[in-house]
């Protein structure tokens, strides 16, 4: 059924996707909040930049990232200077690339959810002594639950399914950067269709369960009255 390599790839994928999703939420939330609230002229441009990586084919984006993050690239020189070394072909690089590629799927739904929160709720919180940060956690977050659900699911799923960027930046190193999408791809290319079906089926089954739990447990039911 599953070869040890398959299982390794599955576990690695889970790690990358979880970490990337966490980082995307961490960076994406303040960004989305700013985008939803600001009236700055920069808003449109920043918004555009966030969505832009999407239009590039993943392998091409991966290629550019490889140049940028590589030891001769700007970012690469910086990370080398920091003593981290160049990011390509490392687990960290994989996460960074995934974050860059999937972040629009996190920022955009959050922004939609945030811009739907009326000023009144924020004002009520302020009169009840909640600082802006406090208000964010006690009012904005719960009121944007459905936006966060969407952001998490899209970000997580897209990171799992992502393939081109991960392959380029990760280097497809077994048990280091070979995620399950690459593994399935390999099976298909190698005409090992049965293996591919099993792995794809397993991934689907697993994701189905996770998503179903997210969707039903968090009970984002429509508002009443």
């Amino acid at each position, binding site marked *: 059924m599953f070869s040890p390599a398959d299982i390794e790839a599955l576990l690695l994928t889970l790690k990358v996707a979880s970490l990337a999703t966490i980082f995307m939420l961490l960076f994406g939330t303040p960004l989305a909040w700013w985008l939803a609230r600001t009236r700055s002229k920069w808003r449109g441009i920043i918004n555009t930049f966030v969505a832009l990586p999407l239009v590039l084919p993943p392998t091409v984006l991966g290629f550019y990232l490889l140049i940028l993050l590589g030891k001769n690239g700007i970012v690469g020189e910086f990370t080398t200077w920091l003593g981290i070394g160049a990011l390509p072909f490392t687990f960290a690089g994989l996460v960074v690339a995934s974050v860059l590629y999937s972040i629009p799927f996190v920022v955009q739904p959050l922004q939609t959810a945030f811009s739907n929160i009326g000023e009144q709720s924020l004002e009520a919180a302020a009169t009840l002594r909640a600082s802006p940060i406090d208000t964010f956690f006690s009012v904005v977050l719960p009121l944007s639950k459905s936006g966060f659900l969407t952001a998490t699911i899209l970000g997580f799923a897209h990171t799992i399914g992502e393939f081109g960027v991960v392959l380029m930046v990760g280097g497809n190193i077994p048990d280091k950067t070979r995620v399950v999408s690459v593994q399935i791809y390999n099976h298909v*290319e190698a005409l090992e269709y049965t293996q591919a079906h099993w792995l794809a089926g397993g991934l689907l089954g697993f994701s189905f369960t996770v998503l179903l739990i997210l969707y039903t447990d968090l009970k984002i039911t429509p508002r009443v009255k």
Partner: protein
Amino acid sequence: SYADTTLVAVASDFIKPMTEIAAEFEKATSHTAKLSFGSSGKAFAQIQNDAPFELYFAASEQYPLELEKLGFAVENSHFTFAIGKLVLWSQTSNFVDDKGDILKNGTFKHLAIADPSHAPYGIFAVEVMKKLNVFEKIEPLFVQGENIAQTFQFVTTGNAELGFIAFAQVIDTQTGKIGSGSGWLVPENLHSPFNQTAVLLKKGENNPATIALIDFIKSPPALAIIKKYGFGLPTR
């Protein structure tokens, strides 16, 4: 004769020579060859699912033979159109010696190869390293491209110090030698024959353009182009 069009699936590593050959083919016969590029595995799957390809130029022998067996290709129509040449290459000059000794005693962090689970260049690179008894030592340093183009990108961007790539990717078409950096052209006796094989698909059986292209690819002008781009010529 009438001008017909044939649709040809071509393995990605053969993009450049095939594009030039197609242009010459059009000039010579007034038929047209439309080219669809992609990895051999993809084309294989597509042909099985009724893709309109008439001729298939794969990077290895395996897929064409399989297609004949499955009945998607005309029986016994397969032929070798070029021999793949492997090179161990680095962007840095004087990094790779012309004997490949670096594999035994060199120090590097990453060696790029095409994924040996399906990409022919990867499969032969592994054979070479095994033969040289360095496979066990080097395997942990592998970074694997999905195909040979990506493998090349790993090396050109400097992220992998060296890699097994196609000679075609680094050949200087003027001199016929490695154009830049440093490299070791791997002797063919270090791996099994790297026959790049084409096959006539059932869809193209009755298309004069397809048949004409099969003839043309074996003609001297086509062979010259194949050679120019760093492939070996099939022995007949």
